[in-house]
């Protein structure tokens, strides 16, 4: 089949450094991958095209790039599968990372964030004589995150990194959970405190992009949610994120539905007047538009049943150690 590629090019060494798109039309078998096609272009059509690749079998994580607007591994994406998106296949470098040349991005910020979560086991006391023995089931929660190949697809399409480069990001935070959830690690509390700092786990906006684009089904956002759950249950409450979750739970437990009047107030902390005052400017305009949430929230008729559900799982958590990973 004829494959029409539109590739974003950038060469820092030419005087004209504005990125631009170049089109290539090559003949490829239908089951060829985007990577096969890019290599075909580089070898036989345009030797100046730069890209990074190695294993060609979705293991090494080198060839993450944006293909038709979405981060994917070029070696795992068949050109035939993209035909429904329209005739042209648009290939761009991964997002949220500096471009070195063409499709090659600088992974240094990626690695520095992974290193920032201390991605190694921290154990108390001397190591065992032989290996650490852990039951299979205690590692089950880590199955997804251990599949991570550090390709950066999640980082490329993260909507928080788009507005704030200081965010630790989905790959590093998923890696963080890999150690928080490891029964051999003894530094959970310190880790959870560190990851609860600004730019950490609570800055994720839960947009699901990382879950959608991850080529290995790591579900980074879901690992961040598990970190949050662990932090809340470890009693790390001195931040807006944790207070938001706990207040939300309390308010739904009380009313059966959300109380939008109290949620932001409680999120700032019940005694944090300065934080609470920051919501004042928006109150008059909400009031004017008839959008002020009721001061005395409406309780649903069956609120006692909702309360019982909360209680049921709270008790079961204590009994069966649910939610606790150790």
């Amino acid at each position: 089949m004829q494959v029409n590629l539109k590739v974003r090019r950038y060469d820092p060494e030419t005087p004209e450094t504005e990125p631009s798109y170049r089109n290539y039309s090559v003949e490829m078998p239908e089951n060829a991958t985007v990577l096969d096609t890019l290599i075909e272009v580089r070898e036989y059509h345009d030797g100046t095209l730069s890209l990074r690749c190695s294993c060609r079998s979705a293991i090494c994580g080198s060839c993450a790039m944006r293909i038709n607007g979405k981060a994917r591994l070029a070696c795992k994406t068949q050109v035939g599968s993209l035909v429904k998106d329209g005739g042209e296949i648009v290939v761009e470098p991964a997002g949220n990372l500096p471009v070195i040349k063409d499709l090659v991005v600088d992974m240094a910020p990626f690695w520095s964030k992974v290193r920032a979560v201390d991605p190694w086991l921290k154990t108390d006391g001397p190591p065992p004589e032989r290996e650490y023995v852990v039951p299979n089931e205690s590692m089950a929660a880590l199955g997804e995150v251990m599949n991570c190949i550090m390709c950066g697809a999640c980082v490329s399409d993260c909507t928080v990194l788009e507005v704030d480069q200081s965010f630790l990001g989905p790959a590093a935070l998923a890696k963080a959970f890999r150690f928080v959830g490891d029964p051999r690690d003894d530094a959970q509390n310190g880790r959870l405190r560190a990851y609860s700092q600004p730019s950490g786990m609570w800055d994720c906006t839960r947009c699901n992009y990382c879950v959608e684009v991850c080529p290995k089904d790591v579900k980074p956002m879901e690992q961040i949610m598990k970190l949050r759950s662990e932090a809340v249950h470890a009693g790390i409450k001195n931040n807006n994120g944790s207070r938001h979750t706990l207040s939300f739970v309390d308010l739904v437990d009380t009313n059966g539905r959300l109380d939008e009047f109290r949620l932001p107030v409680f999120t700032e902390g019940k005694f944090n007047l300065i934080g609470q005052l920051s919501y004042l400017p928006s109150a008059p305009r909400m009031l004017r538009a008839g959008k002020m949430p009721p001061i005395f929230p409406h309780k649903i008729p069956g609120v006692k049943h909702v309360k019982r559900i909360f209680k049921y799982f709270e008790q079961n958590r204590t009994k069966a150690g649910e939610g606790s990973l150790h």
Partner: protein
Amino acid sequence: MRYAFWPGCVSKGAAPELYQSMVRVAPELGIELEELYDGNCTGAGVISEHSMETADALNARNFAMAQRMELPLINICSTCQGVQSLAQDRMRKRPELAAQVNASLADEGLFYDAEKGLEVKNFLWVLVEDLGLDKLKSMVKKPLTGLKVGPFYGCYILRPENILGMDEHNERDHYLEYVIEALGCTLITYEGQDKCCGFPILTINKKNSLTMAANHLSSAQEEGADCLVTPCPLCHLNLDAQQPDAAKYASVNGLEVPILHLPQLIGLALGMDPKELRVDRHVVSTRKVLANL
């Protein structure tokens, strides 16, 4: 077309204009709503941060009520849709979870049959899949010709695709565009229409949250949108109620993009009175919209 109706907390709280427009527009479309007055919050993906099992049980309680009524469930909130679809998926895949959830519901005499499942559809999906675009077009009394409208979906109705039934309905990520065009409006597409409005982190990282909203609103305004339409009241809160604060992070001067709820745009095309649809109940004035009708 009869549905068990879950309006969501926000349409009963900070976005009453959504609830009021929905209950007026639905009968005009032949949609009968049986409201779950005793339904509870879906958890909005927040309760699951505390306890996934509790969040799933809360959702199962709503599902069980709809199953007892033998009706599919309709919602008017992208966030509810995402949370409900995820909860269904978990309970379907893990019978032991469904059993535990049902044990927590037993005292109320409720039971959610996770294996049988329940059709849970956002109003947007109902419009395209159950009512049909041709039928919708035929109902339009006042084509909104000349009104330039951009879509804003909300994350949870778009991702993860496999949980949201997009293997079967693979155009669900284009339905808003289809509806906008069916109503006679000019479709405006822009960078950011599929992205996050920033609402979930409004009280956690306000600057990031407002910058997200500002980026999308700026690009919509640059593309010439008279307004945006959204099926998500949480997106509406950030894009509309927070727009005056977001303006300082905007890349355009004089940011002013009215945001309509989906039933409001439908109602306008059905020739209903804008006041009855509560189109005047927004923080960002909808004068621009009304002037173009």
